Every structure is written in C-alpha cells, then in structure tokens.
C-alpha cells in the first residue's frame, strides 16, 4: 500500500516539467542511509538471509527487501513503472540478464565503476550480460545455463555408454532406447516450445548450436543464413518425425519437467533448478545431465541469470554501491549456491570439490555457461523476443516453411534494429 501511495505521489510530482533527467552520466554515489532491494519473491528465504547479514553490520544503513511478483514480466513492469514515475521506492534492482540494455538505454539504472568489482574472477559470458555499449551497468548475481537431462539408466541398458554430443547421436541413442520394453510410449526429446520467452531461448540455442547467430557481435540481425536454417530445421523436423512429441508445442519449463519426471521423455532440455526436484521424483537416481548437443559437436546454451543494478532515481547511492558489492561478493554467491541452488558467477566455485559432490551438475553447468551465448543484447528486447517467438512458432506449427520464417524474422529484426 505504501509503495502504491508513493507511486501516486511521485506520479503527480513528475507531471510538472521542471524535473530534469534523473540519470547523470557520471553518477557520484553520495548519501548514506536506509535503502531497498527489489527482486522476485524469494521462496527459499536465502535473499532475506543475506540481507539480514548486511543489516547486522550496518544498523544505520538498513536494506529493506521489496518482494515483487514471481512472474518475470510483472517484475519488469513494476520496475519500469517505478522508473517512469522517477520514484525512489526501489534502490537496488535485481534484473534479468536480458534487461540490461533496455534499462541502461532508458537511463533507468546508473553506470557502475567497473574497477571496484572483481569481474575478472567471474565467468566471461556472464559479465558480458551486464554491459551496455562497453560500460558496466550491473553486476552479476547469479547465472544460468541450459543442460541436457537424460535417462542414464535406459541409455545404459540400451548399450549407449556416453552422453550424446550431437543431435544425430541423440537420435541414434533414442532409436536404441525405444526398442527397450521399458521405454514403451516414450518420446525422445523436448524443450520449451510454447509461444513465450522459453521459445526464444530454445530457438536461439538451436540456431547457435548449428553454428548460426540471431544477432552478430555488433548487434545486427543475421538470422537468414544456412546455418540458422539447419538449427531451426532440427526442431521442425523433430516435430515432424516424432523425435519431439507433438504436445511439446505447449510445454513451458514445468510441463517439460513433469513429462520427464513421469517417464515420458528420454532427453529434456531444461535449467539447473530441475535437478533437485527430479531427485525427489520417480526418476531419482535414473538420470544425469550433460551439456546440450549441437549439429556437429557440443551445442551452446542460451545464457540466463540475474544481475544487480542501481536505480537512477534512488537516494543513498553510496550505501547502495556498498550493498551491491556485498550482495555480489564471493561469500554471498556461495550462500546463494548452497541454500538457493543458484548458479554462481564466480568461476572457482564450479571447481570446488566439496561443492561438486553436493551438486553433481556443477561441472556440466560450468561448461554450459562457458559455451553459452547471450540472447540478443538490444534495447527493444521485448519486441525482438516477440518477433522470434512469432516466426519460430509459425515454423514449428507448420504454418510457415523454415526458410520463409527465417526470412521474415530477419526482416522483422532489421526493422526493429533500424528504429
């Protein structure tokens, strides 16, 4: 209620045009005192625990945790609303890795002093997601990468010893497994193919794993290429020949996880969070993970994760900068990994023997993240993602040929990047 009241008040306040641009290009980080941290609802309670640690040391600069809805779109919307009304209700923001460009370009977040953060100790692809035009606008808090979950028990029984590294190997393994009586009614592979952000992720992975790109290094769309077509064709053909079950077109993360856990799938592409949940299900002990396969060798995952940024309109920025350092330091990352099973941005944590014993997927996840490709880093990410979903969905549905879909996508992306 207080936040809502604050929004109304600031909305009225900002309607007079005297207020100038809130974002200065060289922020001074002055002022100390209480601040807020806005992030998604924290089900494990670990975020509050880390914040409590700070509050104990800094009784005069307390951090209040503002819990936003767990739906990603709603989080983004509330943060944009906060920025549009130039409200100081949120000080430190937890941003999805793909929002950095949009928030930075709108000057909703401040540029941060890169030298003050241990970025060289973090995984390089993760650090890249925090930059806009080579300037640092956020600090990595957690990372995320896709992995290939598979039924190791069935593969072993069918005489397949190693995890597949290419799509063809995966299909060959499926052909062997499907001959087993235990595998009756099982489908080979699924990812997230419903028309939402997950489709953007899976489409980009297919394209990148076949050697194509959605946008090139300079941010220009270059998706109408033979390599990209091979990637999309893998998905389209898999739907046609039943490698991917046809109901997978309605799968988001959870539907796919349930299908895998109930023994309907041999291979599943999903995020690390599935590991601990599947360990408690029917397939416990019967599965393991591998890096995503590709066309001719290991595939590339799409990079997920969260970064921490500083709202341009906040007060007490000196405190905020210190809090960001504390929140993203090595100790906090270890706590997030141990208690929230969030993939850390620090490279050395993946090589820790004791942790690897507890989280057997860590080495695979490290490979996945190191091979990962960030989603297009563009200001209008929402529109880019919509365009990808539109065309990829049409191709998977059979409404368009993959050639036509890629051609239309290239056109749509060009139009968006021209704006």
């Amino acid at each position: 209620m207080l936040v809502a009241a604050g929004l109304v008040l600031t909305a009225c306040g900002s309607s007079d045009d005297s207020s100038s641009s809130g974002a200065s290009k060289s922020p001074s980080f002055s002022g100390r005192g209480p601040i807020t941290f806005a992030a998604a609802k924290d089900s494990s309670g670990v975020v509050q625990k880390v914040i409590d640690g700070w509050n104990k040391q800094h009784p005069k600069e307390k951090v209040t945790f503002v819990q936003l809805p767990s739906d990603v779109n709603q989080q983004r919307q509330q943060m944009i609303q906060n920025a549009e009304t130039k409200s100081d209700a949120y000080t430190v923001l937890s941003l999805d890795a793909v929002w950095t460009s949009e928030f930075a370009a709108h000057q909703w977040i401040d540029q941060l002093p890169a030298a003050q953060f241990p970025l060289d100790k973090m995984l390089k692809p993760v650090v890249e997601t925090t930059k806009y035009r080579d300037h640092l606008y956020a600090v990595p808090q957690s990372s995320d990468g896709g992995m290939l979950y598979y039924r190791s028990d069935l593969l072993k029984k069918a005489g397949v010893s190693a995890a597949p590294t290419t799509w063809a190997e995966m299909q060959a393994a499926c052909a062997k497994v499907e001959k087993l009586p235990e595998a009756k009614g099982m489908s080979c592979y699924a990812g997230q193919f419903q028309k939402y952000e997950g489709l953007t992720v899976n489409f980009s992975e297919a394209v990148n794993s076949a050697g194509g790109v959605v946008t090139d290094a300079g941010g220009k769309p270059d998706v109408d290429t033979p390599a990209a077509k091979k990637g999309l064709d893998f998905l389209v053909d898999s739907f046609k020949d039943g490698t991917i079950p046809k109901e997978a077109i309605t799968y988001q993360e959870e539907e796919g996880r349930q299908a895998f856990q109930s023994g309907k799938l041999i291979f599943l592409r999903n995020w690390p969070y599935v590991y601990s949940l599947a360990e408690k299900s029917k397939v416990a002990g019967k599965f393991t993970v591998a890096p995503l396969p590709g066309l001719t060798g290991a595939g590339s995952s799409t990079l997920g994760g969260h970064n921490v940024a500083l709202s341009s309109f906040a007060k007490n920025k000196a405190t905020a900068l210190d809090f960001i350092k504390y929140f993203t330091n090595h100790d906090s990352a270890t706590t997030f990994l141990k208690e929230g099973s969030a993939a850390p941005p620090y490279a050395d944590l993946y090589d820790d023997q004791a942790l690897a014993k507890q989280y057997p997927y860590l080495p695979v996840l490290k490979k996945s993240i190191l091979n990962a490709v960030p989603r297009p880093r563009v200001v209008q990410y929402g529109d880019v993602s919509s365009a990808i979903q539109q065309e990829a969905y049409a191709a998977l549905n059979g409404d368009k040929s993959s050639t036509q879909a890629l051609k239309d996508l290239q056109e749509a992306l060009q139009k968006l990047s021209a704006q």
Partner: protein
Amino acid sequence: MATRTPPETAADRPPGPASGRAGRPPAPEKARRGRKSATAGTGRMAALLVSPTLLVLTVVVLYPTIMALRESLYGTKGLDPKTGFISDTEPFVGLQNYTDIFGEAGERFWNAFWNTTFFTVVTVGLETVIGVAMALIMHKAFSGRALIRASILIPWAVPTAISGLLWRWIFNSDGIANALIGHQILWTTEGFHAKVAVIIAEVWKTAPFIGLLVLAGLQVIPREVYEAARMDGASPLRQFWHITLPLVKPALLVAVLFRCLDALRMFDLPYLLVGAQKSSVETLSMLAQNEASNVRFGPAAAYAVALFVYVLLIALGFVRLLGADVVGDAGGPGRKKRRWASKRNRVEVPA
C-alpha cells in the same frame, strides 16, 4: 417463501385502499416538501457534502481518463544512436496513433478488435441462455435446492486468475478435456480451438452471474400471474414467453449489459489460459497491455481509448435502444433527465 408485491406492480394497480400504504406514491410528496424548504444554506451544505465524492471521482476517474487521452497523442521515445540513450521526452504526434490503426500497423489492432467482439457476442449469448436456464432451475422448489444454488454459484466465486489456471490444467495436452473427448487437441496452441477453450472457460465462469440476477428478477414476479395464466390454459412455454421473459426483462437486460461491458474488457482469462501474443485470442485489453509493457505508452493509450469508446457506445446503445434500466429507476429517460437537471440547478445556483 412469501411472494412480495413489487412496487412497480403496486403502482400499476388501480388506486385502492392498499396502494397508498407504502412504496412509491407518497415519495414524491416528501420530495416536494423537501424542495420547498430548500434555501441557499442547504444548497451550500449539499455542495459541501457532495464535494468529497466529486473530488474522489475527479482523482480516480477523470484525471486518469484525461491523462490517457493526452498520452495517446504522444509517440514513442527515440534512441539517440550516438549516446545510445533513449531520449527523455516523448514526441507529440497528434492523432497519428489513431490513424495508424487504419494504416499498415492496424492489422494487429483489428485482429484484436474482432477477437474482442467475437468473444463478447458468443460468450454473452451462451451465458444468457445458460444463465436463464440456471435461474429457472434455481427458482423451482425442490429438495436440495440450496445445494444446487450454492454449487451453481461456485464458478462465479472463483477469481478469474485462478479459474484461468484451473482451465489450463483441464486443457493441458494430457488433461481432462482431452481424456474426455478421447482425442488429443492442443488447446493452448494457436487456432480456432484456442478460441473455443476461452469461450468454454468464460461461459463456465460467468453464466452464474446472469443466473443470479435473473433469479432475483424471477422472485419478484407475483405467483398470481402464473395462476391466472394456468386458468386460461396457457402452456408452460407460452407462460415463459409471455410472462416470465417480459417481466424478467429489466433484470436480464442489466445482467447482459454488465456482462457485455465485462467481456469487452476481457484480459486475464485468455492471457492465462492460452498465453500472451497469441493472435487467435488476443483481445484489445491484451494488446494495450502488451504495447505498454514494451514501453510504447502512446499507442497503448490510443488502443485503450479506442476500447473505452467502444465500450461506451455499446453501453449507450443498451440504454437508449433496449431501455436497460441501469440506475434502478423505472421512469422513462425524460423523467430521469429532468430530475437530474433540477438537482444540478439546486447545487449550482446558490454556489
């Protein structure tokens, strides 16, 4: 349950000893007495008492509406290629956001417009038929009636967001819907079946609302009318067409109007059940929300204003053409207007 005589029927009867006892007839006298003693003081008092309400209405209704209208005249902020920053102010584009609707960018708008209209016509049509049937069942006296009434009302009591999720489970690829029809339809993909899924869920949820309002209307119809009809040998169907329907019409019209206005604003059910940006179920509200979430507030406001005008026209049509009695006043529109005008004069002249 005792049948109460509605005031309307009492007033229509020839004046007898009973009709002056209560209800409408003495009311105008009271009002007239009040008007006679109205002075500048009471007028000021009235203005003072009404002003908080007017202030709240201005803040809650008028201000956002005007802001939305203003916003719809602005375009989207541009990106400065040199600095990489989005400009601070929105350019004034006049009516361009509206004219774009009729241009090349209008395809998505018109698709959403027809989806909205289609959903409204089909769902309200089905709801009316099913709702009236529900009301007739609930009105009948039989054992276990309380249970039936309660169970019919459950869907209306469930929040739309929850029922959206509920139906998403039902329409899941291996959900109950597919198990029942014994054939796999992927309801939440694009296509006509997605529309059907939304219609089924919407009708399930809101037919009880019409049922409830119609039931209220049914309960004030005096039983003697039916007895007289039965004496004259009217069949049940004839009784329904010539007694029930005309007498329940005021309540039914209000119910249908409310449902129409609600259905035109439909957002959460298709959004949760089928998903955002699905052109087969995208409504105008969803389109406006999508534009706003992509930081294009100008076009979003223009779509919202277009929807507002559409809703307004439908409401006006109902009140003017069909005579829906929304205010709960049985008098004709002329009488309503006159009374409103005189009230306004009383407030304004002294103040």
